[in-house]
């Protein structure tokens, strides 16, 4: 058993070394493919984080009827907090509402100063954060029907549209990632296939000398794994160094303090693991498929 494994490993390593040019060439194909995957992964994960940030920044603004007493407010708050899709509920009395209003309208804000004090026409309100952009509309509708709630506002159709586009972006990145992942797998498989195809005479000779399919196959599978592993090294190194560099250079934020980058840990180790796995496992699989198909046509 151990001698068998030793043989397989030895032959696999020899195969890579003795067909240096070929191995290097297919390794670099794997490298390029994984570079693309890596760039795409970094982009899409960060886009998703940004989208999440934007989504979670949207709040539902629920005005409370005038004359609702403290007890009632507390029970309404509890009711809202227990709704599915609600992340947090904050109470904001009418004074802070006015302040927020004045602040928000900057320049023109002064026009409202006259309302400060008893003339304040605004209402106490709840600020409700939802867990996802999708639940905003739902939560808003339900909250609107709760007793003592006068009016619910969440930026109207504009916000909903924004939320819709954010969801679309998320789905979009998922679809593109899936398609790209598939293409990457096919590309790597194809690369390994070409490598082995170029050596089908060896497979043939081994067969005619009495080697069984299993005997022939394993060293090639090891070869595919090694090629995949070598091919994933550069993308991994570049990804790790590149992302850490970028992260530190940008101080962890994209454009503004609002959009944080995905933190280095655990993202970068995970990414490295994915790249390695893609290289090794797909390399192995490509090898297996290719050899099996070749042997299928060899008597």
């Amino acid at each position, binding site marked *: 058993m151990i001698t068998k494994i030793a*043989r397989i490993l030895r032959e696999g390593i020899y195969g890579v070394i*003795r067909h240096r040019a070929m191995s290097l060439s297919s390794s670099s194909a794997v490298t390029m493919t994984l570079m693309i995957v890596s760039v795409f992964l970094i982009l899409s994960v960060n886009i998703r984080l940004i989208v999440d940030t934007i989504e979670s920044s949207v709040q539902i603004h629920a005005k409370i009827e005038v004359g609702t007493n403290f007890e009632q407010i507390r029970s309404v708050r509890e009711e809202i907090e227990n709704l599915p899709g609600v992340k947090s509920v904050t109470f904001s009395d009418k004074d802070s509402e006015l302040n927020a209003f004045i602040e928000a309208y900057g320049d023109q804000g002064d026009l409202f100063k006259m309302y400060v004090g008893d003339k304040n026409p605004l209402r106490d309100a709840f600020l409700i954060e939802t867990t996802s952009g999708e639940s905003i509309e739902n939560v808003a509708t339900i909250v609107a029907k709760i007793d003592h709630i006068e009016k619910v506002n969440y930026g109207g159709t504009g916000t909903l549209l924004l939320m819709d586009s954010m969801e679309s972006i998320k789905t979009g990145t998922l679809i593109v990632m899936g398609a790209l992942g598939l293409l990457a797998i096919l590309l790597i498989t194809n690369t390994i296939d070409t490598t082995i195809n170029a050596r089908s005479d060896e497979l043939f000779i*081994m*067969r*005619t*000398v009495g080697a*069984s*399919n299993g*005997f022939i196959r394993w060293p090639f599978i090891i070869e595919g794994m090694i090629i995949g592993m070598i091919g994933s090294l550069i993308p991994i190194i570049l990804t790790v160094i590149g992302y850490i560099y970028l992260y530190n250079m940008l101080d962890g934020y994209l454009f503004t303090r609002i959009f944080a980058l995905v933190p280095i840990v655990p993202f970068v180790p995970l990414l490295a693991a994915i790249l390695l796995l893609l290289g090794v496992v797909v390399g192995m699989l490509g090898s297996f498929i290719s050899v099996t198909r070749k042997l299928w046509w060899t*008597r």
Partner: protein
Amino acid sequence: MLEFNDVGKQYKNGFNALYNVNLKIKQGEFVYVIGPTGSGKSTLMKLINAEETPTSGRVILDDVDIGALKSRQIPKHRQSLGVVFQDYRLLPAKTVFENIYFALEVINIEKTKARKRVREVLELVGLADKANSYPSQLSGGQQQRAAIARAIANQPKLLIADEPTGNLDPQMSKEIIHLLGKINKEEETTIIMVTHDEKVVDFYKKRTIILEDGHIVADLVEGGYRSHDH
């Protein structure tokens, strides 16, 4: 041991290489197969090696119908054979030593024993000094001898050699034939050898099968190249 029953072989492009071949070879025999180029000698060998399947008739080795072997049964069959291919078929990325060692690994021979055996057969064919050369670094005759060494390494019951001396000088040819004769005698290996070498056939007289255009035209127990007249 080996039997051809009414064997015909037509290649995929329609060419008919063998017609109605009937043949019986007993355990321990040494048989020459001779005939003009393109007469079907290699095709005959390929049928024994299960590389090609007969389009009619049956090739039977020790009660096994070789033509009917399934792909996954073939390795077992080949492991009991030794084959010297006309085109050598050495693995280009392996040294001479490794090429022969490979044939022994295939039949699961223990490591030190296998290494010893490889050195033994390399000595026998006079190639000990080229053990670590790659096939591309060998002369034609050296490649041929490496192929012979690989074929005899696993001490097969049946050895088929397709033109094993075509690239050897007369002296070396003689030695190789001598070696095969010894193997045939001492290990009772059945040997079927395709050759064009009149000298060999005339000198070491053995049973000789003559092929012409896919037909067996003579099967001479007394042997000799010239004993058959066109």
